[in-house]
C-alpha cells in the first residue's frame, strides 16, 4: 500500500536527520562521503595510470610524486586513487546479496514452526563453527578467484549470521498481538511476513547493515592481502599493503596510505552504523521528550525557613524535580507526615508519583535532577545533592519498597545475603544472620537456612515482595516509601501483602508513604491522601473526607472511575489523556480535561489552598465538582435469546507440556447480545480459552460451535465468515498494534479482508469507527507510538469492530490501563454492546470491572470452572471457596458505601 511506503520513507528520513544531529553520526557521514568520493571518483583524479612505471621502485615522496613509487616503480598516489573502487564495490555488492538472501531465509525459518526451522538452524550452526575467514578461503578457492566468486563467497559467509539474527527477531515479533490479530483474521503467511513482521525487523537490520558492510570489507581486504583474491596488476588498497612490504624501509608511505584509506573506510562505516543503532535504541527505549520548554512558572523561593516543620517526621517543601536542564517532572510539592501515619499518594501514570517517591530518598533516575526544594527527615535535611551522605540515610532512616519484586532482587545473591547486605552496610554492630532470621519471620517468611539460601527466582512473587519489605525493615527506619508494591502481584497475593503492610503500620506504628494508581488499595491503608496530577499535588486531606466529598474535579473523576464489585454502577471515566512532561499548559494542568474549566483556569495556575476540614485543594472552582449520584446498574433481565457460541468440554495445554493441561473440561454458552465474564487468578486458564476461541491455540479436546456451526480448531482452517464473526482484542496495548503502520490502515484491514469491502469503503469505515470509539480524526494518520495506552486499546477495539463481528473476545484489555482510562473503555464497551447487539467474552481478574459490565460470570481456577451464574447472584452469595477468596481479596474503595444513595 502506498501509504505504508510513504510512511516508511518518512520514518527513515527523520531517523537519518536525527542521527545526523549527533556528533558521531555527523562525523561518520562526512567521513563516509569523503571515502565514497575517493573510491569512486579517484580514478578521474589520478595523475598517472595505475600500471605505468614512472620511476625507480620504492622511491620516497618527492619530486613529481606526492607519495613516491611502489615496489615496481608505479605511482603510489595513482594506485591509491584507483584502489578503492574494487574493495568498496565488491563489499557493497556482497553485503547486498547477503541481505537479500539471508532475510527471507531467516524470516521463513523463524515464522514456520515446522521442520524447516531446526534443519536450517542446525546447518547455520555448522557454518558458524568455522572462523569466517577459513570458510571464506574454502569457498573462494573452491570456485576460483574472479570478482563474481569473491562476491558470492563473501555473501555466503555472511548469510548464516544474518539469517540467525533475522530468525531471532522474527521469533520475537511473531508472538506480538498485532501478528496474532493477523493470524486470527486469517491473513496468509506471506502477507503476515511482509506486512506485519518485515517492517518491524527492518530497523535493527538497517542499523547493523553497517556492521555487515565492515565485515565484507575486512574479508575482501584480508583475502586480497593474503594474495588469494584479485590478482595483480589490478590495484586495490589491501593488495598494495602486502606487495609493498618489501620496500617498507624505502617508502613506508606506499603501505601507510592504503592502510589509512582502509581505516578511513571501515571507521566511517562503523561510526555511521553505531550512530544509527544508538538512535534506534534511544527512540525505542525512551519516550521522546518533547522540546524542553523553559518551565512555565517562576521558580518558587528556593530557601525555605529552616526547621519550620520540625515536629513532623517528614517535611517536604516546594520540591521540584526536572529533566536535566528541562521542564519540571514534579513541581511545588510540599508534604508533611507525622510519626506513625500513613500517607497515600495517588494519580494516573505520568503524574510524577514515582519520581516523588524516589526524590524523598534524595534519589533521581538518570536524566532527571532535583532542581529546588528541601526534604527533611526527623528535623534533619536530606542531602539532595550529595549522593554519599544521602546513601547513609537511605535504608537506615527512610527505606523504599520497589514496584516490581521479580526484577528488584539481585538474581545472583541468595535472598538471605540480600537482606544481610543492608544490615552489614548500616548496622555493623548487629549479627547479620540472627537479624535476617528475625526479619524474615517478621514478614512471615520461613527463616531457616534452606530458605535463606534460595535465589530470588526460586520464590513466588509474593515471597519476593516480602523479602524486599524485610530489607526495608532491616534497620528499623522511621519511614517506608512503598512504590506500587502490589501492582505486579496476583489479586490474592496482593491482598496478603497488603494485610502485611497494614499490620506493620497499625501494630508497629511504622510511618508509610504508599504510592499507587489504585485508589481502592490506597483507601484501605492510608490515613491521608495526596492526589497528584501532572507533577503537582491537586488535593490533599484525610482519606475519608477526600474520597467521600472530593473537592477537585480530577479527584472526583478518579473516585467515579473505581468499579465496585458489590455495588456495580455506571463508571464515569475522565475524558482525554494526561499531559506529558514538557507539554503542560500555562494554566491549570487539568483544565484541558476538566468539565468546569473556564478562562481563568486556562490562564493561571491555581495554588494549593485550604478548602475545608483539613483538606487542601489546587482548584479555582474547588467544591463545585460534586460526586454524581451513583447510577446503580440494574441486573439485566435475561431474555431467552439464542446461543451464539457454545464451548463444550474444552481441554487445552501448552505446547510440549501436554501432561499438565491449562484448561480441563470447560463448557459454557454465550448468548446473543450477552456479556459473559471469565474471572480468576493468573494461571487459571482464562487467556488460553480466549485464544482457543479466536483460533490461535489448538485445543487438545472439546468442541466449539458458533451459531450452530462447528468451528475448526485454528483460524487458518475456519472459513472467512466465521473469522469475521469472532474478533479478539489483546491485553498489552503496546503490542496489539503494528508499530510501523498507520492507525487508519490497521483499522481498515479487517473491513477489507473479512467484510469484503472496497479499499475506499474500508477507509471510510475506519474513519467512522475511530470516531465511534471517540478518537479524534487525526489519530488515523498517526503511528501507534504517538498514542497513549488507552488510545491504542480503543484503536484495537475499532479494528475488531471493522470486521462487523458478533462476538468480541476481550482478553484483559483494561489491565494495563489507568483506572480512569479503564472506566472510559469499560463504558465504551457497554455502549457499543447495546448499540451493535454485540456479544462479549470479557476476560479479567478485576471483579469490579466484571460487575460493571457483565451479565454472567464464570470463576475459573486451575483450568476448571468452579462457579458460574448471574454476576449479582454469584457475588452476593458465592458458593465456592475460591470465589469467596477472590471476592475477599478484591479491593474496594473504603467508604464507598457511604456515598451510595440510600436504598
Amino acid at each position, binding site marked *: 500500500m502506498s501509504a505504508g511506503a510513504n510512511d516508511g520513507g518518512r520514518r527513515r528520513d527523520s531517523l537519518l536527520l536525527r542521527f545526523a544531529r549527533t556528533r558521531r553520526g555527523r562525523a561518520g557521514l562526512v567521513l563516509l562521503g569523503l571515502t565514497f568520493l575517493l573510491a569512486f571518483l579517484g580514478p578521474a583524479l589520478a595523475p598517472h595510470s595505475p600500471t605505468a612505471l614512472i620511476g625507480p621502485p620504492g622511491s620516497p615522496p618527492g619530486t613529481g610524486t606526492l607519495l613516491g613509487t611502489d615496489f615496481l616503480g608505479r605511482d603510489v598516489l595513482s594506485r591509491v586513487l584507483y584502489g578503492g573502487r574494487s574493495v568498496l564495490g565488491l563489499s557493497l555488492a556482497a553485503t547486498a546479496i547477503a541481505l537479500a538472501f539471508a532475510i527471507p531465509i531467516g524470516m521463513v525459518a523463524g515464522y514456520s514452526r515446522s521442520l524447516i526451522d531446526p534443519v536450517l538452524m*542446525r546447518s547455520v550452526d*555448522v557454518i558458524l*563453527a*568455522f*572462523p*569466517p*575467514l*577459513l570458510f571464506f*578461503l*574454502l*569457498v573462494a*578457492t*573452491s570456485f576460483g578467484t574472479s570478482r563474481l566468486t569473491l562476491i558470492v563467497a563473501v555473501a555466503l559467509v555472511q548469510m548464516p549470521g544474518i539469517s540467525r539474527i533475522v530468525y531471532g527477531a522474527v521469533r520475537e515479533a511473531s508472538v506480538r498481538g498485532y501478528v496474532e490479530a493477523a493470524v486470527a483474521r486469517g491473513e496468509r503467511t506471506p502477507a503476515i511476513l511482509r506486512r506485519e513482521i518485515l517492517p518491524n525487523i527492518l530497523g535493527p537490520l538497517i542499523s547493523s547493515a553497517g556492521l555487515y558492510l565492515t565485515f565484507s570489507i575486512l574479508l575482501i*581486504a*584480508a583475502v586480497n*592481502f*593474503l*594474495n588469494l583474491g584479485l590478482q595483480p596488476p589490478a590495484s586495490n588498497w*589491501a593488495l598494495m*599493503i*602486502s606487495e609493498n612490504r618489501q620496500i*617498507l*624501509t624505502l617508502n*613506508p608511505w606506499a*603501505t*601507510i596510505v592504503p592502510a589509512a584509506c*582502509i*581505516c578511513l573506510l*571501515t*571507521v566511517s562505516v*562503523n561510526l555511521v552504523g553505531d550512530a544509527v543503532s544508538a538512535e534506534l535504541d534511544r527512540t525505542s527505549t525512551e519516550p521522546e521528550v518533547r522540546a524542553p520548554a523553559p518551565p512555565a512558572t517562576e521558580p518558587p523561593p528556593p530557601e525555605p525557613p529552616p526547621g519550620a516543620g520540625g515536629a513532623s517526621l517528614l517535611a517536604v517543601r516546594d520540591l521540584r524535580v526536572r529533566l536535566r536542564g528541562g521542564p519540571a517532572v514534579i513541581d511545588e510539592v510540599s508534604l508533611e507526615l507525622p510519626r506513625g501515619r500513613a500517607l497515600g499518594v495517588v494519580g494516573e501514570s505520568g503524574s510524577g508519583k514515582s519520581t516523588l517517591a524516589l526524590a524523598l530518598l534524595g*534519589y533521581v533516575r538518570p536524566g532527571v535532577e532535583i532542581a529546588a526544594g528541601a526534604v527533611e527527615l526527623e528535623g534533619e535535611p536530606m542531602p539532595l545533592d550529595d*549522593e554519599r551522605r544521602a546513601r547513609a540515610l*537511605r*535504608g537506615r532512616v527512610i*527505606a523504599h519498597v*520497589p*514496584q516490581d519484586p521479580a*526484577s*528488584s*532482587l*539481585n*538474581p*545472583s*545473591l*541468595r535472598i*538471605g*545475603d540480600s537482606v*544481610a*547486605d*543492608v544490615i552489614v*552496610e548500616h548496622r555493623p554492630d548487629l549479627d*547479620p*544472620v540472627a537479624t535476617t532470621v528475625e526479619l524474615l519471620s517478621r514478614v512471615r517468611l520461613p527463616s531457616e537456612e534452606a530458605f*535463606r*539460601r534460595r*535465589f530470588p*527466582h*526460586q520464590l513466588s512473587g509474593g515471597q519476593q515482595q516480602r523479602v524486599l519489605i524485610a*530489607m526495608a525493615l532491616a534497620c528499623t527506619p522511621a519511614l517506608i516509601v512503598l512504590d506500587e508494591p502490589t501492582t505486579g502481584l496476583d489479586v490474592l497475593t496482593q491482598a496478603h501483602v497488603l494485610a502485611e503492610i497494614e499490620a506493620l503500620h497499625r501494630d508497629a506504628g511504622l510511618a508509610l508513604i504508599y504510592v499507587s494508581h489504585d485508589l481502592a488499595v490506597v483507601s484501605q491503608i492510608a490515613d491521608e491522601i495526596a492526589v497528584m496530577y501532572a507533577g503537582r499535588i491537586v488535593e490533599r486531606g484525610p482519606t475519608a473526607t477526600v474520597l467521600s466529598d472530593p473537592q477537585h474535579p480530577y479527584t472526583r473523576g478518579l473516585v467515579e472511575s473505581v468499579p465496585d464489585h458489590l455495588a456495580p454502577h455506571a463508571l464515569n471515566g475522565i475524558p482525554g489523556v494526561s499531559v506529558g512532561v514538557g507539554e503542560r499548559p500555562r494554566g491549570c494542568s487539568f483544565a484541558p480535561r476538566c468539565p468546569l474549566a473556564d478562562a481563568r483556569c486556562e490562564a493561571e495556575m491555581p495554588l494549593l489552598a485550604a478548602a475545608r476540614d483539613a483538606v487542601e485543594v489546587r482548584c479555582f472552582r474547588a467544591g463545585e465538582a460534586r460526586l454524581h449520584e451513583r447510577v446503580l446498574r440494574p441486573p439485566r433481565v435475561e431474555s431467552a435469546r439464542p446461543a451464539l457460541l457454545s464451548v463444550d468440554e474444552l481441554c487445552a495445554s501448552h505446547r510440549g507440556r501436554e501432561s499438565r493441561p491449562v484448561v480441563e473440561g470447560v463448557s459454557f454458552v454465550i448468548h446473543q447480545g450477552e456479556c459473559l465474564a471469565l474471572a480468576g487468578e493468573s494461571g487459571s486458564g482464562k487467556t488460553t480459552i480466549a485464544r482457543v476461541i479466536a483460533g490461535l491455540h489448538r485445543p487438545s479436546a472439546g468442541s466449539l460451535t458458533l451459531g450452530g456451526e462447528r468451528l475448526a480448531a485454528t483460524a487458518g482452517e475456519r472459513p472467512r465468515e466465521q473469522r469475521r464473526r469472532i474478533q479478539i482484542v489483546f491485553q498489552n496495548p503496546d503490542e496489539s498494534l503494528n508499530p510501523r503502520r498507520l492507525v487508519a490502515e490497521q483499522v481498515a484491514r479487517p473491513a477489507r479482508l473479512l467484510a469484503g469491502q472496497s479499499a475506499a469503503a474500508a477507509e471510510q469505515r475506519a474513519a467512522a469507527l475511530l470516531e465511534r470509539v471517540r478518537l479524534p480524526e487525526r489519530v488515523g494518520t498517526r503511528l501507534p507510538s504517538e498514542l497513549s495506552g488507552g488510545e491504542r486499546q480503543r484503536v484495537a477495539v475499532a479494528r475488531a469492530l471493522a470486521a462487523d463481528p458478533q462476538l468480541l473476545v476481550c482478553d484483559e484489555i483494561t489491565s494495563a490501563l489507568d483506572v480512569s482510562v479503564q472506566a472510559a473503555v469499560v463504558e465504551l464497551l457497554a455502549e457499543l454492546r447495546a448499540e451493535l447487539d454485540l456479544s462479549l467474552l470479557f476476560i479479567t481478574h478485576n471483579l469490579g470491572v466484571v460487575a460493571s459490565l457483565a451479565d454472567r460470570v464464570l470463576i475459573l481456577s486451575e483450568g476448571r470452572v468452579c462457579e458460574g451464574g448471574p454476576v449479582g447472584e454469584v457475588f452476593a452469595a458465592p458458593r465456592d471457596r475460591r470465589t469467596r477468596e477472590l471476592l475477599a481479596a478484591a479491593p474496594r474503595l473504603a467508604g464507598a458505601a457511604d456515598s451510595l444513595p440510600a436504598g
Partner: protein
Amino acid sequence: MTAANETPRSARPAATGASAGGGPVAPSAVRPFLIRRTSQGLITLLAASVLVFLAVSVLPGSPAAAVLGRHAKPALLARIDHQLGYDRPVPERYLDWLSELAQGDLGQSSIGLAQGKQSAPVWPLVRPRLVNTAILAAITIALLIPLSLFLGVMAGVSAGRWRDQVISTTALIFTALPEFVVGSLVIVVFFVWLDLLPPVSLVEPGETPLAHPDILVLPVLTLLGVSVAATARLVRVGTIEVLRSAYVETARLAGISERRVLRRYVLRNALAPSVQIFAISIQYLFGGVIVTEAVFGYPGLGSELVSAVSSHDNTVVLAIAVILAAIYISINVIADLLVILLVPKLRTQG
C-alpha cells in the same frame, strides 16, 4: 582458562557471614547439560568435517597438477591421482579419512606424496605450528580478558562521561581496523621508525617462539588492538544494562555503598554475559590469527593454512580446518558451561 580464574574472584561473597556463599553446584543440573552439549558439539564437528571435505574435494586442480604444472602428461597425473586415491568416489574417501582420524591419524600431505615422497604425514607438520599458534593465542587471551573487562566496566560505569567517551571512541575506531592494517602499521612504527622490534617472527625449527619473546610482541599487539576494542565495547553495553536494572536501583535505595553495589550487584551479574562475549572474541581471535600470522610470517597454523590453500595441499587444509573447527566448538561448549555455573537461575533449574 583465564575466564575460569575470574570466576571465583568476582563471585566470592563478601564476608557477611549470612551464609557460606558459593555453594555446591547441583551436579544433577550440570552433568546432563555437559553430556548433551558435548554430544551436540561432536555432531556439529562431524557435520563441519563433511562440509570441509566436500569443499576441498571440489577444489579445481588436483595436488598432482599443482606440483607437476600445467603441461604435465595426463598419464603421469592419473598415476599420481591413483596413488593419492583421488580416483575413488568422495564418500569412500571421506569414510577412510574419518576412520584414520578416529585413530589419531591426520593423513598424508597430498603435496608431499605428489612430490614423490614415500611418506609425508600431516601431524608432524602441523603439530609445531599448532603449538606456536597456541602460544600466540594464549598470551593474547591472557591479556585480552583482564584488559577488556577493565576497560569495558570502567566505560560502562562512567557512561556518558569523558572517560567513557575516550574509551568508547577509541574502541569504535579500533574495532573497525583489519588485523593486517594494524599489523602493517605497527611494523612501520616499531620497526621502520623506531627500530625496536623485528618485523618478522622467525622461529628456527625445533624452537618455540618463547625463546625469543621479542618476536611475539608485535603479533600480540596486533591481535589485541582489534579484539580488546570489540570485547570492551560489548562488556560496556552489558555493564550499562546491569547498571540500569531494578536491583541496582533497589540496592542504591537501600543505602548500599557504591563500592559494594559495583562488586556484588553489577560485576556479578555482568560476568555471565561477559563469558559469552569472551567466547565470541576468542573465536574471532582465531580468524584474526590466520591473517596476523601471515603479516608477521609467524610459523603457526594460520600461515600454514594459507600456504596449503594456495598450493592445493588438500589434506593439510582439511586437517587445519578440522582443528580450528574443534577449537571453535569447544570454546562454545566451555562458555555455555561457565554461564550455567555462573547464573544461579540456570544451574538450579531441575
